[in-house]
């Protein structure tokens, strides 16, 4: 009796050990499989992008097929529209985040704003582009950098709102109470105490928003459209790096493909640098 029980237990134990081993191996191979693909993408991007790099990228505009050229007009266009979107989106985002965290933390309106903001945060960017098309392009009857900037700022706002609120919530209440006890009105408490305390975190939010829009392509296609020459006129169509990558990659020309890879590498390098700085700042904030 005792002997058969031990044997049964040993069988069970063996089965459990076997299952354990199989699933651990499966999980490790899933991880290796996934990580290999991601490493593969970065490697291809580096190899193809670096070989197309050169000073001409920053000095010459996008060429017609078969000629030499760079990405200068696209880089300038991206810089103009990105900074415009940050200038419009950051104040709105910071004030809205401040309202949620400081004025109406548990209010009904805040609940709705929070919910809607989270939806906008992950809503398809192409749909937000359609919204700006109806709002700006159709009334003006032509594509413009203004419309592109607006489309990007609609993407900036939710990112900044979310991080601002989260970072303000990390500020201890005792700081606010101390400032209020000294007689500071609430607006002064916010401007001189809570914003100061949450500064690094709030800058993180803006950096993340810039990282997000610097690779954003879909909403620019039918708002800012594109431009083959250098243009700083914000009422007209303007080139942008992602839109040029899109157009050139889908073309049949070999030179254009090289420029597309170079642009992709530039965009990725920008995004990764911004994300790394943002991470460092956020770490500083949380300590």
């Amino acid at each position, binding site marked *: 009796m005792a002997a058969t029980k031990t044997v049964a237990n040993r069988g069970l134990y063996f089965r459990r*050990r076997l299952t354990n081993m199989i*699933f*651990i191996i*499966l*999980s*490790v191979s*899933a*991880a290796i*499989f*996934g*990580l290999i693909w*991601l490493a593969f*993408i970065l490697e291809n991007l580096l190899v*193809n992008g670096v070989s197309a790099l050169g000073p001409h990228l920053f000095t010459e505009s996008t060429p017609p097929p078969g000629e030499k050229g760079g990405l200068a007009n696209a880089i300038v266009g991206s810089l103009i529209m990105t900074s415009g979107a940050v200038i419009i989106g950051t*104040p*709105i*985002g*910071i*004030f*809205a985040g*401040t*309202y949620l965290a*400081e004025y*109406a933390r548990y209010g009904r309106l*805040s609940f709705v704003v929070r919910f*809607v*903001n*989270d*939806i*906008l945060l*992950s*809503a*398809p*960017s*192409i*749909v937000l582009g*359609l919204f700006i098309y*109806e709002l700006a392009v159709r009334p003006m009857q032509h594509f413009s950098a203004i419309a592109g900037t607006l489309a990007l700022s609609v993407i900036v706002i939710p990112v900044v*709102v979310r991080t601002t609120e989260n970072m303000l919530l990390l500020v201890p209440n005792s700081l606010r109470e101390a400032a209020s006890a000294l007689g500071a009105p609430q*607006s*002064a408490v916010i*401007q001189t105490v809570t914003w100061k305390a949450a500064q690094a975190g709030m800058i993180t939010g803006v950096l*993340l928003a810039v990282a997000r829009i*610097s690779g954003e*392509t*879909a909403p620019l*296609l039918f708002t800012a459209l594109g431009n083959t020459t250098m243009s700083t006129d914000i009422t007209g169509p303007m080139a942008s790096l*992602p839109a040029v*990558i*899109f157009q050139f990659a*889908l073309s049949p020309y070999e030179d254009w*493909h090289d420029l*597309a*890879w170079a642009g*992709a590498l530039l*965009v990725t390098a920008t*995004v*990764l640098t911004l*994300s*790394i700085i943002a991470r460092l700042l956020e770490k500083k904030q949380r300590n």
Partner: protein
Amino acid sequence: MTDISLTEPAALNVRAATARKVGVGDARFRLIAFLAAVTVLLIFAGVIVALIGGALPAIRAFGLGFITTEAWRPAREIFGALGPIYGTLITSAIAIVVAVPVGIGIAIFLTEICPRFLRRPIGIAIELLAGVPSIIYGIWGLFVFAPWFQSWVQEPVIAATAGIPVLGTLFGDPAYGIGIFTAGLILSIMILPFISAVTRDVLEAVPSVLKEASYGLGSTQWEVIWKVAIPYARTGIVGGGMLALGRALGETMAVTFVIGNAHRIAPSLFAPGTSISAAIANEFTEATTPLYTSSLIALGLILFVITFIVLTCAQLMLRSMEKSAGK
């Protein structure tokens, strides 16, 4: 040092004026914050109004038949959304089916199995990859993945499944490299870092007391993961998966490059197709007639409704997860 006399009228006036000034500034600041919060609501309302307004001509012309019609013939002004809707749903389904198990595998590896000194670097790398713009995945898919997939996977699979009833149709000709299946795989690679990062975060939130108790009872490592950690984190994992699904449904650039842009529903998954976002991105600036533009905006409206439902479910699940975690 001057004494401030409370009874002196002039001083009282100054005090009152100062208090008023501060009060006005305070109220103004609050009003600005309030208006900014309302702006977020206005943007959301604006998106809905603009989409419905823009889609009206198409809705008037085709009615509900828009959703159930496959034909898309711009030259004859006949537009139906079934092809793009099918493409969006199928590519997202492929992406989720591939990325969720692998993503959970990566998360389990990172939280339970990986040697401690590798955890942080791999974790950070995955988080950074989650922020890489989708156009990068698209261009890689077009130039590197599609040709490789065509000669190393599609052709052998087509040859192997030819003649088998269901599989033969599902994985039938043609092997172009680009198509619905390729788009789904590129999407899955794109959402993989996101799913891994979210799942890792919720798995890390599982209290170690629970796991230690289970180990103490003699559980194997897998039993602890499968019967303690994952059930505890289930809501968070499903919520994260839904967020990823929302991303996949609305993703434009990773899909547009490799889906082939054909408005039809082919029996083979390898065949070219289109998705809602790809159709809008490819055709919007070429739309010549008002009805064409309006039909594309109607597609956008459908996409917005689908993602809204998915994202709302994701929000509700993540909220309930936070609540039960005592936040």
